[in-house]
């Protein structure tokens, strides 16, 4: 699998889009630090961007790479290589190269600014970790869609739709349900609803770590009570892990049944 991973990784690393993605984070990192003049404020701004952007880029890159490398895949399928090796190798290749753009792109400006001397190292690490998790999750989801749909337009449409529903529509429905049922106790409901969506879960994890949960009011207190404990952190981590492993297992399953 390592050979395939290597080829996919280099293939993407050499492509123009990975540089654009890397440069985007680099410029963003420097610009935010310059404008805010504070590491912690920059992290808060970055959070809002990363939470929405990494899933989107993961989705688009994932689906684009798998459709455009179909020839390569067919070539590999006729070689003495296990099927799951081919697909998992490509999946990890894409995910690693995207995660690398994110980590280096933001890591460089923050290191230059003196992140390591500040107290925000853990928060920054958490930010990058959630970005990496989200990248892996959404690349895996888009690979599944690419395997299920040979029609590129359809596949692209579904992938964007899934991103949109988890990043935007889910929150909308969540807020509407909070308003409709405001007469009932909703703390448990909102806790569960937040944990089921990887994007919301990452956002809350970072917000709570940044100690600005007072902004969230009473629910914030409930969240703080839950996520502040080791149990809460462990549960959230397990949920993110589930979100990133289940689609990978599905890739294996679908790939083994597909005709090429």
């Amino acid at each position, binding site marked *: 699998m390592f*050979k395939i991973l290597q*080829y996919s990784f280099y*293939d993407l690393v050499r492509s123009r889009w990975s540089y654009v993605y890397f440069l985007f984070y680099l410029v963003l990192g420097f610009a935010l630090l310059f404008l805010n003049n504070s590491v912690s404020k920059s992290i808060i701004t970055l959070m809002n961007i990363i939470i929405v952007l990494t899933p989107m880029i993961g989705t688009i890159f994932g689906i684009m790479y798998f459709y455009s490398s179909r*020839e390569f895949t*067919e070539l590999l*399928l006729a070689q*003495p290589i296990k099927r799951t090796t081919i697909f998992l190798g490509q999946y990890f290749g894409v995910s690693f190269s995207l995660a690398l753009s994110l980590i280096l792109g933001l890591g460089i400006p923050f290191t230059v600014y003196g992140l390591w001397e500040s107290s925000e190292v853990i928060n920054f690490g958490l930010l990058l970790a959630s970005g990496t998790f989200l990248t892996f999750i959404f690349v895996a989801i888009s690979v599944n869609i690419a395997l299920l749909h040979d029609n590129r337009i359809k596949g692209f449409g579904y992938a964007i739709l899934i991103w949109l529903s988890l990043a935007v529509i889910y929150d909308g429905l969540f807020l509407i349900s909070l308003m409709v049922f405001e007469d009932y106790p909703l703390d448990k409901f909102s806790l569960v609803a937040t944990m089921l969506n990887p994007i919301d879960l990452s956002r809350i994890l970072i917000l709570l770590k940044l100690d600005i949960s007072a902004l969230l009011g009473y629910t914030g207190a409930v969240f703080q009570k839950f996520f502040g404990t080791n149990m809460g952190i462990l549960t959230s981590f397990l949920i993110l892990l589930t979100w990133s492993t289940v689609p990978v297992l599905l890739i294996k399953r679908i790939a083994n*049944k597909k*005709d*090429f």
Partner: protein
Amino acid sequence: MIEINKLNKKFGRVKVLEDVSLKIDKSGVFAILGPNGSGKTTLIKSILGMVIPQRGVIKINGDIISNQWLYRKSINYLPQIARFPDNLKVAELIRMITNLRGQKSNDKELIRLFKLEPFLDKKLGNLSGGTKQKVNLVLTFMFDSPILILDEPTTGLDPVSLIHLKELIKKEKEEGKTILITTHIMDFVEVIADEIVFLLEGNIYFEGTVDNLKKNSGKNSLEEAIATILTEENV
């Protein structure tokens, strides 16, 4: 040795292969013929494990191939359409496949034969169809494997390369290899094939030598013999 037993494959509701059984236990050139959509490529891709049949068993050298992959070490495959990653260079692609298979390859000799030296540093996306097909041929013939499967090898080749291709196939045959070829060019079949497997609507309609097929249909040329079968069957 290739052994296929009651192979069935449907794509959606379309039956492509129906109870196809075939046994190839000797060396030589076997031409798989049949009209468009008769299931030639599906049959080949099933042998390679790229298409997964609903029912039936395929054995290569005595072992059942479902969910296996190491057996592909003994097969060289030439796909019907030469499609490669566009941003790779020819030399990189050859190096990559050699590296992935971990087998000895005689790519240098083949590159010289097909005069591909000037293209080694070019990206595959910038090559013409014929040149891509030559790269395809190099990738297929560069390993020494007992089974060769060629899906329409003549597509887009110029006459000189076609002669080289015939020589290559002849050489492999002399080395005692089993070669499966699909093609629509009957002259090519007459020159190189030892036996014919004729597929019609997902069934094997005829299996035997070229001479037998001619005798059966009472025609002098293979092209006419095939045409007779097809008109009789109203395909």
